[in-house]
């Protein structure tokens, strides 16, 4: 597994754990209420699991197993994939912090822009690797 996939997948596991922790707090609070503010974790819970866990895991595994070139650099131009890692995590945390601390809507907007840019950067990297054996 290449280093970038290791970063992506380990980061995905951290977000899985955080997402399940927020979910468990909300579910526990639903059964035995202890803090009315727990429901405010819902947007962060969804962001952590959908973007932080699922999308990030998919990107990490795709970077690892998508077809490689016969000659180096075997994964082609990896700049887009590295950029995607930074943009995705930066954007994700802007959205999460914005929802947790009720920050101005600009935080969520910039976070979503960074997430979209991450998707574009990853597309730029991966597109040429989506080929059959014949190329």
């Amino acid at each position: 597994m290449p280093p970038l996939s290791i970063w992506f997948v380990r980061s995905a596991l951290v977000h899985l754990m955080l997402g399940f922790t927020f979910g468990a707090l909300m579910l526990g609070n639903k059964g035995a209420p202890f803090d009315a503010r727990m429901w405010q974790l819902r947007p962060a819970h969804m962001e952590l699991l959908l973007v932080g866990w699922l999308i990030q895991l998919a990107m990490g595994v795709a970077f690892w197993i998508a077809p490689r070139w016969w000659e180096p650099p075997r994964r082609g131009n990896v700049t887009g994939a590295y950029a995607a890692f930074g943009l995705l995590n930066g954007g994700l945390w802007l959205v999460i912090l914005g929802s947790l601390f009720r920050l101005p809507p600009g935080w969520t907007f910039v976070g979503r822009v960074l997430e979209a840019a991450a998707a574009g950067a990853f597309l730029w990297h991966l597109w040429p690797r989506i080929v059959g054996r014949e190329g």
Partner: protein
Amino acid sequence: MPPLTRWLIRTALIYLVLALIAGVLLAARLLWSLPLPTAGLDTVYLHLFMVGWVTQLIFGVAYWMFPTYSREAPRRNPLLGRIVYGLLNAGLVLRAIAELGRTAQGDVWSWLLVLSAVLLWFAAAGFVVNTWGRIRGR
């Protein structure tokens, strides 16, 4: 494909069917007045799909395909893997039943929701512990 992966993927497929049946019930509820528990069904639908199907499928494929941990323990701790399977499914089934059965704050179903939260959290923690050491280069 190791036996635990087969259990995880087959169970995930069952949840996919159950989740989509819940989706049918949610849609039918808008057309006819059915004698169904209305509160909580949308949450159950979402979690059967995202945890029972998507997450469980990922757990199964990751257990099978991720780099091996060592020559002696290629999938790290198979017992922990089976415990994760049990916790995840016990937690999810309990959550679905308690969510639909709950009628009042503080009833027995509410406490089963708390128990399901604990089971699901430990399932995720067990998966992360068992998988972390396998995320590495050659």
